[in-house]
């Protein structure tokens, strides 16, 4: 059974002669608990594809199903609800909320979901410990290193146990050692929690951790490789 299913998805920016076809007739299925990397050069459509799946942007045409929900037919409020309950995001630039502490950042999504405070506190404490940040709960993002910030972002994406985690170039701003540690962590979490990961990258290190590698070029998936 697929967590993500795309049928003939196209995305075109601009019109007429200035039109840029970012995605061209993408067909793709990603199974539950998979750990998929989208790779390809800049401009190949990796991030655009992630944005379509995550409901951050709308496809020009085609059908997108995430966790049995037709994303392409949702309105703005439904998309927000879907992102809140179904998807966790990890971005390239950490994207933590600067005025909140590490623990508060992790609890943010749960708070939006209306989860009671005691449950939030317990879960955030456990997940921060799992990503190796226990003792740093009360630090603001500016007081954490890049690697630590990205771990907080991972904890935030993971804590509400979404069906799918989308990560856009998660190691782009990290040194190789920190990047290696982060990818080990993501694989570990994938193994432990069975959450589906889709990661866009052009980092070979990240690709080496993927079970499945989808190569993109000019808005098309040109190769689909099962690794391990």
């Amino acid at each position, binding site marked *: 059974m697929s967590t993500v299913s795309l049928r003939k998805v196209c995305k075109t920016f601009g019109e007429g002669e200035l039109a840029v076809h970012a995605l061209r007739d993408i067909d793709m299925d990603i199974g539950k608990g998979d750990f998929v990397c989208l790779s390809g050069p800049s401009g190949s459509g990796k991030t655009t594809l992630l*944005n379509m799946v*995550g409901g*951050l*942007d709308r496809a020009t045409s085609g059908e997108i199903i995430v966790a049995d929900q037709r994303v392409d037919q949702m309105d*703005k*409020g439904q998309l*927000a*609800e*879907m*992102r*809140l*309950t179904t*998807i966790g*995001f990890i*971005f390239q630039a950490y*994207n933590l*909320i*600067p*005025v*909140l502490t590490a623990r*508060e950042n992790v609890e*943010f*999504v749960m*708070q*939006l979901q*209306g*989860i*009671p*405070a005691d449950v939030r506190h317990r879960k955030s404490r456990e997940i921060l410990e799992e990503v190796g940040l226990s003792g740093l709960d009360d630090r603001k993002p500016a007081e954490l290193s890049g690697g630590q910030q990205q771990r907080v972002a991972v904890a*935030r994406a993971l804590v509400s146990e979404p069906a799918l985690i989308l990560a856009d170039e998660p190691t782009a701003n990290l040194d190789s050692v920190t990047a290696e540690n982060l990818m080990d962590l993501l694989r570990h979490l994938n193994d432990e929690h069975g959450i589906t990961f889709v990661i866009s990258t052009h980092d070979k290190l990240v690709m080496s951790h993927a079970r499945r590698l989808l190569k993109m070029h000019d808005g098309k998936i040109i190769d689909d490789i099962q690794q391990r």
Partner: protein
Amino acid sequence: MTGQSLPLLATLGWRNLWRHPRRTLVILFAIVLGVWFMIFSAALMIGIVEQQLQDTIFNLTGHAQIHNPKFRDDPAIEHSMPAPNQALLEVLNSRDVVQWSARVRLPAVAMSVRESRGVMLVGIDPQRERGLSFIGEPVVEGRALESISDNGIIIGRRMAEKLETRIGQRIVIMSQDRDKEVADRGFRIVGLFQAELEATETAYVFAGLATTQKLLGMGSDISEISLVTNSREGLDPLVARLSNAAPELESMSWQELEPLVVTAMEFYEAFMVYWYLIIFAAMGIGLTNTMLMSVFERTREIGLFQALGMRPRFIVGQVLMETLILLVIGITIGNLAGWLTTDVLLASGIDLSAFAQGTEQFNMASTMYLTLRPNDLLQINALVIALGLLASLYPAVKAARYVPVEAITRT
């Protein structure tokens, strides 16, 4: 938005405000200043109106009067009324009436050896005027009238100057008696009164009620009954009771007796709303601008909120919560400053005696007292919060309309 989310909104709102402390303090200062100025100007305006009203009531009007129906149009002796009957006395002596007094009030001429002036001769019961009108207050020179049969007369200090006379000297009062004959008699000036307005000091002379009735051959007839009540709100039912007790007479409240004062009060009330709006306009522009800047600066963060599943109405709520926190702090300090100014620093009033002639032109006393009414405070605070939230609605809606993918990649 769930109840669980409110603490999150409040936390985000509070901390976001202090990301730029200087900007927050500047807009906070503007709100405090605006609220303070609204409160101060309201207290000043209401103080002026209230004082004019008090002066009017204390200037022989009272809260209500009873007359012969023709007396107000033509205050002549033939339009007098009989002394109150038993039914009327029952209402006048009821718990609702603090003080009442019967008077004779008729036009007359006052003549000294040098000058003569047209005046209003008022025959009073000096004991009953206490707490009812200014003539119940101690005189500034000489003595007050002692009884309704007192043979002396009290005139205004300014009148004494105009008549070129003084205490101890005699003046002649001439008027028309019941038989339409000239009635006159000499009175010794026993006291000089002082009033807030010079016009009052030259308008009235006061003699004992019985002495005046005797001079004019009125028997026990009077011109009017004036009264003060313990509650202005309960005045209308009281006037209705007076009318029932004496249907042949005209019982009127101060609102009917002094329509100009009522119009002035209504004008001030309406003016204050426009005045608040003008003050708020300046404050609101600053507020909108601040919140717009705040939203623009945080475009990427708002994009992140959206990506994480924050619903559009929650984003609107987040911006509004920031504004609400600002407004509540500003209003609290503004109210405190307003209270300090009106009830502590200027509790003894603003002394305008240096401009006495100018204030007299506007029928104002030489000391202005500030009056802070709870209703005005509520009105100001509610207006500032409602309009403040309205002013930040545009930035809030703008934030909620960001396209997530564009917002999150904005640098």
